[in-house]
Structure formats: structure tokens, C-alpha cells
């Protein structure tokens, strides 16, 4: 057990080294679908944080009585429950946001990040590990979504979180707000991240 990551390692790994969006390439459906503006991306990241944290903690609590061949059923059941809670909560208190995100909130149920973390971390390690892992991964996911959404909102609408940041003479690149913009931005940002990583690795190899 000594070579398993500590809670702090789990937390840090989620943010950059194992970033769900750029390194693991998980949860790409919301990454492409709800990054048209920063506010909906952050709401999505918040929803994922809640669901991932609750699911990880519960799965970690019951990990010793989990039957291996029934584990996926239990993961899905747990995730679906918390997603439904988030969905109802948004409909009650953030109605317009709930309408804007539409089916993508219920689709968190099939978001691979969460089931991956339940499988990799929560079903094997303690509650503290699982909690730290959930928060780290969620921050990483928020960074991934936020970076794409910021680029798309600035170039597509000239604004950030609804405030104008570019001069009004900026011709809004509508394509950035449309689905192709998500692919362009995601590809370019992913390329940038990979370029930095490979540069860093080369340096380490040379040293």
C-alpha cells in the first residue's frame, strides 16, 4: 500500500499532471458543449465538483462491502442520484442557467471523469484520499472548461462573464460561439499544453 498516492498527491495530480480535460481527455462532451460562455462552464464545473465529491466519498465509505462484479452498478446508481439532486436544485434556484445547460446536467451521469475517479481512487482508498482526489480533479476540470470557455467567449462575443472586455469595434467571431469554435479552441489549447509538457520532458531528459 506504500506506493499508493497520498491525499495531497491525489489533489495536486488532478489539477495539472492528470488534468481531466487536457491529460486524461475525459468528459469531453460537456467540454465541447457548454463552453460557449464562462458562466455556464463554471456552473457545469460546480455541478461536477458536487457530484464527484459526493460520489467519491460514498463509494470510498462502502468500498469494503462492495462486490467487485456489482461495483459499476453501484457507481452509476450513486452518480445518478447526486446528478438528479443537482438538476433539481438548479431548476429551483438558477432557473435560467438550468434551461441554458439543458440536457447536459443530466448527462453528467455518464461523464467518464466521475466513474473513472470512483474506479481508480475512491473504491481503493480512504475517504480523505477520495475527497482530496475529487476536489483536485474538479479544479482541473474547472481549469479545462474555464480556459476553453474564456477563449470562446472573448473571441465570440467580446465579453467575459457577460462584461465587455474587447473594444466595441471587435467583430465578434460568431464561429467561436458555435460548435466548430469548441473544436478549434480545444485542439489549439491541447496542442499548447502538450507542447509545454514535451518541452519540460526534454529538459528533464537532457539534465
Amino acid at each position, binding site marked *: 500500500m506504500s506506493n499508493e498516492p497520498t491525499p495531497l498527491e491525489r489533489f495536486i495530480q488532478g489539477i495539472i499532471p492528470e488534468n481531466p480535460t487536457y491529460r486524461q481527455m475525459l468528459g469531453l462532451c460537456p467540454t465541447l458543449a457548454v463552453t460557449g460562455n464562462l458562466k455556464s462552464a463554471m456552473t457545469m464545473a460546480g455541478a461536477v465538483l458536487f457530484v464527484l465529491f459526493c460520489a467519491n466519498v460514498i463509494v470510498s465509505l462502502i468500498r469494503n462491502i462492495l462486490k467487485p462484479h456489482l461495483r459499476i452498478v453501484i457507481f452509476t446508481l450513486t452518480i445518478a442520484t447526486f446528478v438528479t439532486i443537482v438538476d433539481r436544485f438548479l431548476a429551483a434556484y438558477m432557473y435560467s442557467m438550468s434551461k441554458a445547460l439543458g*440536457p447536459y446536467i443530466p448527462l453528467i451521469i455518464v461523464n467518464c471523469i466521475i466513474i473513472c475517479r470512483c474506479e481508480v481512487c475512491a473504491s481503493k482508498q480512504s475517504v480523505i484520499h477520495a475527497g482530496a482526489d475529487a476536489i483536485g480533479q474538479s479544479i482541473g476540470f474547472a481549469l479545462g472548461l474555464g480556459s476553453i470557455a474564456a477563449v470562446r467567449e472573448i473571441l465570440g462575443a467580446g465579453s467575459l462573464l457577460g462584461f465587455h472586455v474587447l473594444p466595441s469595434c471587435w467583430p465578434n467571431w460568431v464561429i467561436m460561439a458555435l460548435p466548430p469554435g469548441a473544436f478549434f479552441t480545444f485542439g489549439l489549447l491541447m496542442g499548447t499544453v502538450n507542447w509545454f509538457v514535451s518541452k519540460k520532458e526534454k529538459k528533464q531528459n537532457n539534465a
Partner: protein
Amino acid sequence: MKNNYILQAWLVLLLAVFYGGSLAGVQLSLSPKINENKINETRQRVPALVLGKDRANEPVEIESENIAVEKNGRKVFYNVFKAVQDGKQAGWVIKTSGQGYGDKIELLLGVSPDMSIITGLFVLDQKETPGLGNRIADPAWRQQFVHKKTDKKLVVVKTGAKAPNEIDAITGATISSRSVCAIVNNTLSDLKPKLAGVN
């Protein structure tokens, strides 16, 4: 004992009961708030659906009522809003729903006081395929219904609408388009006899 599937799944069953209970609790405590949001949204839409989008800011008095329609031996309830402007009836807004491609589609249908012309259509809730079916909520597509006469049933066509009762299908979402049309047709045929002579 080891091969008893029910016993093996005790944790799944226990969790399912526990989760089901907590979801019922969440639903019970939040549903009044969610319904209130939906009703508010409906009321805000009434002026635009009755008067047209250019006059959406004009004040309109709204009286809401539930109308029961006997259909195939079953009672169907419609939530109907009567829009009154300057003491005169400006039109009806009917909340209606029906099965779509993905899930239930909820619509608001604006109709003239004598139920002869559609004055507006708004999609309150839908879970159609993103990018295809969910374009039923696009203003441009919904606009096709405005000014349509209600004497003939509306028909969805794929080759460009020509006749006055034809609606263009959304490319790749014929079923969603047809669902919306069917909901509109059903609602009109259910309520026309009830509402046309009221004012």
C-alpha cells in the same frame, strides 16, 4: 447461498431504496419552487405570444384557468391563460405538452380570441437531441407557426412548405418537428370548441 443473485445484490437494493427515498424528499421540497419558476416564465411569455414580439412589453392582464377536455373516455387538463388588454380579450395562451423524440415537449401556444389564428409558439421544456431536435426552440423555426390558420391541420413537409398549412421540417429532426406539429394540432382540436365561443 453464494449463487443467490438477490442476496449478492443486497447493497444495490439497499442503496436503491435509500437513494430513491432521498430523491423523493428532494423532489417534494423543491418542486413547488420549480413549478413557481415555470409559471413565472409562462406569465412573462404571454404578451409576446398573444400580441407578437414587437409588442411584448405592453401590459396585459392574465387570468389563468384549468380546462378539462373529455378525450377517449379520459379527462385531459389544459392550463389556459386568458390575456386581456384594455378590458378586451387579446387572445389565449395554452400550456400543452406531448411526446417528442427524446422526452416530453412542453409548449406554450398563443391563439387569437376566436381560436382561428395561431399568434405565437414557445418551447417551455424539451430534451430533444442537442444540435438537431433542440432546434425546435429556435425562434426562426417557431416563427413559421405564427399567423397560421387553425381551420386545417398543420402538416410537416421536408421539401419546402408551400401550402398555407405546411411547416418546414428541421433537417435531421423530422420526428421532433412532427411531434411539435402533432401537439399543436391536438391542442387546437381539443380546445377549439371550448374556447372559440367564450368571449
